[in-house]
C-alpha cells in the first residue's frame, strides 16, 4: 500500500497538493502510532531495562530502591583465598542454573522437533480430501483451546501414579509391569512434560503448516502424478521445499515459545530438578528465595540467549516475515 498510489490520477497533475496530502498523512500516522508505542514502552521497554539494571545490583524483594550497584558480580565474581586458590561464584558457575539451561534447551529442541514432524503429518492428513475432514479440524482445535494450566491438571490426573488411566491402560496392554509415577520420577518427568506440550501445541503447528500447504498449486501434483513420480519423492522434492517458508516461521514461533516455558512445568512437575527450566528457576529466585537481583540476572541471560538464537535463526535460515513493504 503506497501513498503514491493513493493519490490517484486526479491529483497527480497537482504535485503541490499531493505532497501536502502525503505530509499530513505521515503526520497523522505518527499521532496514531504514538499511544501504542507509549504503551509498549511502559509495559515492555522500561521493565526490560529495569530488569537488566536490577541484575547489576544487590536488590532484594523487600528493598528494591536501597540497592547498590555491584556490576557483574551476580553473573561472576571471584575471591582469591590466602592459600592462593581462586574461588568463583555467581550465575555462570551455578550448577542449578546450568541444569536449568540444559533442561530448557533439551525441552525446546525435542518438543519442537517432534511437534514439527507430527504437525506435518496432521497437516498432510487435513490437506487431503476425505469425508469428515471438518470433524478432524474441529477436534484438533480442542487441545489448542484448552488453557495450559487446565491441560497440565488434566494430564497430571491421567498420569497419576495410583489412580491414573495411563498406568491402567499400559498395564492392561502389558506395556509396563508396574505402576509408574510419571511426573514425580526424575527419569520420566521430562517425558511427561514433553507429551503434554506436544499434545497441546501440535495443532498450532499443523494449522500453520496446513496454511502453507494450501498455497501450493494443485497442478504441480497433477504433473508429478502424470509423470509417475513416487509420492514419497514428491513430498521431499516438491511439498517440502515449497512449504519451507511457512514451516520456518512456524518453527521459530514454537521455538521461542518453548524457550520461555513456565506454566506447564510449574504445575505438572513442581520441584522436579529434572524439568526445571530457566523461567522456573528465575521466578523462584525473584519471588520465592528473595534473591531478586540474582533472579533478574537469570532473566537477563534468558533474554540474551533467546535474542541471539532468534537472530541466528533468521539470519541462517533466511526467514522472511512478510511484514515489510508491499
Amino acid at each position, binding site marked *: 500500500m503506497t501513498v503514491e498510489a493513493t493519490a490517484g490520477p486526479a491529483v497527480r497533475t497537482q504535485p503541490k497538493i499531493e505532497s501536502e496530502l502525503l505530509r499530513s498523512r505521515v503526520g497523522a500516522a505518527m499521532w496514531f502510532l504514538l499511544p501504542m508505542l507509549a504503551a509498549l514502552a511502559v509495559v515492555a521497554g522500561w521493565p526490560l531495562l529495569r530488569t537488566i539494571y536490577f541484575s547489576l545490583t544487590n536488590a532484594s524483594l523487600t528493598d528494591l530502591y536501597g540497592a547498590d550497584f555491584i556490576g557483574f558480580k551476580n553473573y561472576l565474581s571471584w575471591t582469591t583465598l590466602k592459600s592462593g586458590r581462586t574461588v568463583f561464584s555467581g550465575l555462570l558457575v551455578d550448577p542449578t542454573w546450568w541444569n536449568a539451561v540444559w533442561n530448557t534447551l533439551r525441552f525446546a529442541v525435542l518438543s519442537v522437533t517432534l511437534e514439527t514432524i507430527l504437525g506435518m503429518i496432521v497437516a498432510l492428513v487435513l490437506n487431503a480430501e476425505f469425508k469428515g475432514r471438518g470433524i478432524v479440524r474441529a477436534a484438533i482445535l480442542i487441545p489448542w483451546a484448552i488453557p495450559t494450566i487446565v491441560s497440565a491438571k488434566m494430564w497430571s490426573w491421567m498420569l497419576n501414579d495410583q489412580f491414573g488411566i495411563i498406568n491402567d491402560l499400559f498395564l492392561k496392554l502389558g506395556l509396563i509391569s508396574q505402576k509408574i509415577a510419571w511426573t514425580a520420577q526424575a527419569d520420566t518427568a521430562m517425558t511427561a512434560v514433553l507429551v503434554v506440550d506436544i499434545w497441546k501445541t501440535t495443532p498450532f503447528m499443523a*494449522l500453520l503448516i496446513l496454511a502453507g500447504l494450501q498455497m501450493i498449486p494443485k497442478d504441480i501434483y497433477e504433473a508429478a502424478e502424470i509423470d509417475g513420480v513416487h509420492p514419497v519423492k514428491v513430498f521431499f522434492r516438491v511439498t517440502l521445499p515449497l512449504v519451507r517458508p511457512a514451516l520456518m516461521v512456524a518453527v521459530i514461533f514454537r521455538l521461542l515459545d518453548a524457550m520461555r516455558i513456565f506454566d506447564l512445568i510449574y504445575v505438572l512437575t513442581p520441584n522436579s530438578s529434572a524439568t526445571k527450566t530457566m523461567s522456573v528457576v528465575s521466578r523462584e529466585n525473584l519471588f520465592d528465595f528473595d534473591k531478586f537481583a540474582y533472579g533478574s540476572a537469570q*532473566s537477563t541471560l534468558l533474554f540474551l540467549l533467546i535474542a541471539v538464537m*532468534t537472530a541466528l535463526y533468521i539470519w541462517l535460515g533466511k526467514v522472511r516475515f512478510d511484514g515489510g513493504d508491499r
Partner: protein
Amino acid sequence: MTLDLWTITKRTAFYALVVFIVFVAVFPFYYAILTSFKSGTDLFRVTYWPVSFSWDNYISVLSTGSFPRNLLNSVFVASVTVLAALFLAITASFALSRVRFRGRSLLLMTILAVSMFPQIAVLAGLFEVIRFLGIYNTPWALIFSYTIFTLPFTVWVLTTFMRDLPIEIEEAAIVDGATPWIIIWRVFLPLLWPALVTTGLLAFIAAWNEFLFALTFTSSNATRTVPVAIALLSGGSQYEIPWGNIMAASVIVTVPLVVLVLIFQRKIISGLTAGGVKG
C-alpha cells in the same frame, strides 16, 4: 468396479490414522468431563465409560471457596485487556498498513519481537512498575501487564488484515475530503468487524489462559484469575488433592472456550495464520 487390495489397505490405514488423531486430541478432555461427574470413591476407580453421574463436584467448586469470584475476575481482566488493546491497535495498524514512512518495516519487526518476548525477562521490572503504580494485587495489575502480549499481537494481525482492504474505498474517501481519522472510524471500521472479532477472540483466549503474571501480581484468593485458582486448588490437607473439584473447575473454564472456538473455527484459523504465514 474393482478395488485392488493395495488401495483398500491404503484407505484403511489413512482412516485409522484419522481416527487416531481425533482420539488423541479429544480423549483428555473427554476424560476430564468423565471424572468431573464422578464422586466419592468412584473417583478413584479407573473407568473408560460413564458409570455414575453426580453434580457434587460442580456444586462444591461453585459454592465453596472463591471460584465464582475468580471466574468474574478472569472475565473482567480478559475483556478490558482486549478492548484496550483493540482500541490502541486500530489506529496504529492503520498507520502501519496504509501509510508509507521511513522505518516502518523495522517498527513492525520490533512489535513482532515484543510479542515473542520471554515474559520472565520483564517480570522484575514490571513488578517494580506495578508496585510503584499501587496496583499490586488488583485486576488492573493484570490488565496493565497483559498489554505486553495482547497489543503487539492485535497490531500485527490487524495490520495484515488492513493491508488487504481495497484502495479504491480509501481513494473515494480522500476525494470527499475525509481525514485519516474519519477514514479509520467511518470507512474502515465497518469493513473490519470480522477481523476485529477474530483478533479480539484470540487475544481474549491468550489473556484468559495467562498464568505467570497472574501468579506473580496477585496474592489473595479474591483477586486471582481462574488459571491460578485451578493451579492452587487444594484439599483439606497437603496430600489430599481434590481431583474431582479440579476437573469440574477445568470443565467450567474450558467449555465456553471450546464452544467459541468451534463456532469461530474458520475465523480463528485465518487469524492464527495471518500472524504467521503470509505469501
